[in-house]
């Protein structure tokens, strides 16, 4: 049976826009010059590279030389955090409990190297406490790294306030903006951001390319040694095709898409809440990424729902432990204080500019049926007496 295909896992990755692919094509078999070469092909690549750099810089109100191209979000996060740490050699780094693994694991690695790390708590909506952040900053603090928008629950942190605080305290501020880039306006000058990670494949660009914004005055240690590419901060021949695609993806992302996604997001939330009883929206209702819906369906487990949806052609993701490789529930859902069984029933729907109202209707219709059927066979219900589990604190 052929089903409609509805892709609502754009937080994981997006489809490459065909217009992006088109502009990338000539950079494989025709314009394959190394941007460090002195001949025509090399110069052509170099010029294109620099043009791309200024377009991306402009989008975040940065200078072209403040953009370092990388292989994506994870590399950018590693370069920013380790890069600052290695310049200082010792010190204290502040981050949060809901960061992407490429931030959390990098910080844990640095802790083993002797750095002191503070993982800030978040409240039930996923916000850090600015007072706690302020109180955590000491004379030894070298870096604050707090993500802009959370990849799982969509909560948007007040980065302008964080940036202001960091500036006052003379501490560097890095933000992982992989999820929010082009979905929220970001002005690195206005928000006092020193370092910011970006990725192409979350915005309909190709996989394997991203960037780190680094304020001119900030010093970091390079992580990949070799040639002098990227202001001598990231060795390796530039991925021109990828960078060209990344740039096109940025140009194609328009403000009107934010409005469209927000409307469909709100429609998905309210239709689910109207059609299906006993649900809980995870993350902030107000300060929320325009394409993120994260909802727990009580009394059912997320993997089962996900596979049923997949059988209907609908792609989503879940924070349930049952679908993770280590069988632990999502650290983000634990950090916002969700009970384990409710975390197990969480589903994440992430929209894109290609999502339609029809898609939303199709999802809600099928979801309603699936949840009803799974609840029928579940021993859990409203008045079930839950035994209290021990909160797992080993993650941080």
């Amino acid at each position, binding site marked *: 049976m052929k089903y409609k295909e509805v892709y609502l896992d754009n937080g994981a990755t997006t489809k490459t826009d065909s217009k992006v692919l088109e502009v990338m094509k000539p950079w494989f078999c025709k314009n394959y010059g190394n941007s460090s070469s002195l001949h025509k092909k090399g110069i052509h690549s170099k010029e294109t590279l620099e043009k791309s750099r200024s377009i991306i810089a402009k989008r975040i109100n940065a200078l072209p030389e403040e953009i370092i191209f990388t292989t994506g979000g994870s590399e950018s996060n590693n370069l920013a955090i380790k890069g600052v740490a290695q310049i200082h050699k010792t010190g204290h780094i502040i981050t949060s409990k809901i960061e992407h693994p490429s931030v959390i694991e990098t910080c844990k690695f640095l802790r083993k190297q002797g750095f002191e790390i503070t993982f800030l708590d978040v409240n039930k909506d996923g916000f850090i406490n600015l007072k706690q952040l302020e109180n955590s900053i000491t004379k030894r603090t070298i870096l604050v790294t707090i993500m802009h928008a959370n990849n799982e629950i969509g909560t948007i942190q007040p980065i302008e306030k964080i940036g202001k605080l960091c500036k006052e305290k003379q501490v560097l501020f890095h933000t992982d903006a992989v999820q929010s880039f082009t979905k929220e306006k970001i002005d690195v000058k206005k928000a006092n951001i020193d370092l910011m990670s970006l990725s192409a494949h979350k915005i309909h660009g190709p996989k394997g390319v991203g960037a780190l914004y680094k304020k001119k005055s900030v010093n970091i240690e390079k992580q990949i040694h070799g040639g002098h590419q990227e202001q001598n901060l990231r060795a390796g021949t530039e991925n021109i095709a990828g960078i060209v695609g990344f740039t096109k993806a940025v140009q194609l992302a328009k403000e009107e898409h934010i409005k469209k996604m927000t409307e469909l997001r709100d429609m998905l939330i309210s239709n689910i809440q109207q059609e299906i009883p006993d649900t809980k929206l995870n993350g902030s209702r107000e300060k929320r990424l325009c394409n993120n819906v994260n909802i727990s369906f009580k*009394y*059912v*487990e997320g*993997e*089962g729902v996900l*596979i*049923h949806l997949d*059988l209907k052609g609908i792609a989503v993701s879940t924070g*349930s*432990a*049952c*679908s993770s*490789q280590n*069988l632990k*529930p999502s650290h983000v859902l634990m950090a916002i204080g969700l*009970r*384990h*069984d409710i975390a*197990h029933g969480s589903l994440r729907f992430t929209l894109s500019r290609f999502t339609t109202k029809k898609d939303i209707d199709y999802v809600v219709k099928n979801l309603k049926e699936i949840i009803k059927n799974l609840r*029928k*066979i*579940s*021993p*859990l219900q409203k008045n*079930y007496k*839950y*035994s209290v*589990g021990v909160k797992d604190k080993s993650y941080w």
Partner: protein
Amino acid sequence: MYSKEVMKHFQEPHNMGEIKNPDGIGKVGNPMCGDLMEVYIKVKKNIITDIKVKTFGCVAAIATSSMITDLAKGKSLEEAKKITRDQVAKSLKGLPKIKMHCSNLAAEGLYKAIENYQKKTK
């Protein structure tokens, strides 16, 4: 990731629900771990004449619940008590390694239901 047999049982699980006035009930798992099963049995002349399961859990948990009902129905209590997790997994043409322990609780649930019955009738 899952075998065809697992998917078949997951999509249309057999004998789901509960039995009114069951002869034995076995509860295993914990919603905190993401898997919870309740096995209900009816016993006549030492034979399991009816079995039903309620399950909260992943694809593997639901499929193993369904499979255990197929394996246990019509069996004597002694035979049914011998059904192992491995047998359940094998009958489903295998389970992902990671799911072997956490979600493969059905055999244990059945064992507990039989024990519950035997305690009552002693």
